[in-house]
């Protein structure tokens, strides 16, 4: 019972000749907010897909609450308590915003009425109440990202995987996003998040894990990671110079 919430154990994933993720190992403890960072194509989203069960790993294991879940498909991992968002939003566009979230709530509330109630509470929590009745297809891009988070939260996850939910937001919107992530953690949910904007991710996370070309480059406290010479040259340096 004292096992970390998530253990990624020597996981690799190849696409043909391309090694998208190579021998990655790390852990996420209960109640943490952990940042997963790295330049474009580093393998962050692929790693999320491996953890959430959207893709099988080429080798290695995923353990959740100490149990090997590598063989479980995505819906079963959701049932265990792994929730996720997608970097490229995947909303149910023909359904209303509320109905989108109901789909998530049904995992723990098989009766539709109870699921609707749960979904309504989550929408209030996520600040999407005014849009509840709109078709999801009508939302603005920032609202769609919020809907992704709300939908995943409705599954009542123990671990929430957030893939670039702040990308494309204005600084003010991003600040609201940061507040939402903090609020989520306060409800007892552990968060693993991919984010590009260092100014957002570094103050928010307890620890950071850096991927580069599919391999671990560094991990540790945000300040230490940001000061790591390897990270600076591979990633932060590029960004600083670019901006």
């Amino acid at each position: 019972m004292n096992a970390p919430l998530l253990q990624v154990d020597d996981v690799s994933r190849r696409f043909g000749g391309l090694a998208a993720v190579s021998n990655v190992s790390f852990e996420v403890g209960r109640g943490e907010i952990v940042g997963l960072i790295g330049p474009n194509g580093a393998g962050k989203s692929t790693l999320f897909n491996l953890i959430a069960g959207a893709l099988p790993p080429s080798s290695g294991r995923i353990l959740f609450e100490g149990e090997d879940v590598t063989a479980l498909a995505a819906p079963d991992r959701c049932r265990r308590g792994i929730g996720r968002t997608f970097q490229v939003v995947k909303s149910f566009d023909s359904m209303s915003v509320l109905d989108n979230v109901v789909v998530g709530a049904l995992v723990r509330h098989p009766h539709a009425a109870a699921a609707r109630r749960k979904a309504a509470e989550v929408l209030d929590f996520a600040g999407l109440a005014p849009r509840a009745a709109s078709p999801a297809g009508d939302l603005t891009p920032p609202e769609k990202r919020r809907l992704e988070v709300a939908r995943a939260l409705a599954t009542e996850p123990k671990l929430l995987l957030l893939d670039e939910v702040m990308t494309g937001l204005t600084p003010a919107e991003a600040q609201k996003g940061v507040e939402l992530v903090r609020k989520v953690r306060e409800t007892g949910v552990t968060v693993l998040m991919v984010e590009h904007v260092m100014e957002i991710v570094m103050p928010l996370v307890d620890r950071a894990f850096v991927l580069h070309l599919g391999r671990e480059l560094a991990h540790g406290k945000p300040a230490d990671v940001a000061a790591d010479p390897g990270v600076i040259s591979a990633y932060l340096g590029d960004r600083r110079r670019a901006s």
Partner: protein
Amino acid sequence: MASQALSAPLAATTAAHDGRRRRELIAFAILLAAFAVLPHLVKDVYAQNVIVLTLMYAALSQSWNILGGYCGQISLGHALYFGTGAYATSLLYTKFGVIPWFGMIVGGVIAAAIALVLGYQLFRLAGHYFAIATIVIAEAGLLLVHNWDWAGAATGIQWPFVPDSWLTFQFGRDKLPYIYFALGLFAATWLVTFAIEGSRWGYWWRAVKDNADAAESLGVKIFKSKMAAAAVSAFFTAVGGAFYACFVQYIDPDSVMAFKFSLLMALPAVLGGIGTLWGPVVGAVILIPLMETTSSYLGGTGRGIDLIVYGLLVMVVALARPEGIVSLFSRRKAPKA
């Protein structure tokens, strides 16, 4: 998150949802009453025949819509299930004396079983490949029955002539019993769809249709969802086929399993509004009387021309209003493409 009070917009949305469901049931009751009275006002045998067919296709299209509209698995081979119901009932009755009421259920169960076996193979296929595979398999089924001597092969099965009776569901001239049965079948399919819309299956199926990856990440089992939709859809389609056999009292492979029937089950839903509660019945009420009148105007050769007429009609709707005719009446504006 304990059960705290909802914010005003969400309380309003929830209340609106419940109100809409109640209004739909009321509208349904009115529609049923209207159809129950109609044959007492329209006594012409030919017109009553059209009423039977309209209600039957409303029920069939409602069944098709469960798999094609809600779950997004476009089948163009539902004639296979229609034929299964018609043949199961006819064979059980003419060969073993089993009353059609029982044959209908048997046919429905066999069709659901076939749908599960086919689904096991076909649901691995994406989009268009699925639709094409359903056509091919239904055509193969048609060919099989054509060569099945015990089932009458190409000659088909003639039901024996018996006195009017509810037990055998045979009525020589009286159309009323058929109208009421078709109305009952439509009511059953509508109510099942209504119940599905309000249950987890309805949410799951629409989620599978809209985005399978996202659905999986939210705990939805895609394959199981599609299988369930296919079985329910096939069951009611076969009951419709069984009814048709009772109604026409003579079937042959082409009169119940031709590709035309697969189209005629899909078109009302597409025309009226695919994946909606009211689309199939609205589509059937427009399409079937139109089709019946054009084919009689065009005489014996009408078969090909009426196909062209409603094919064009559906194309016009698809271009002008992809959400179907019912979207004209919904207050919510159509989602942008």
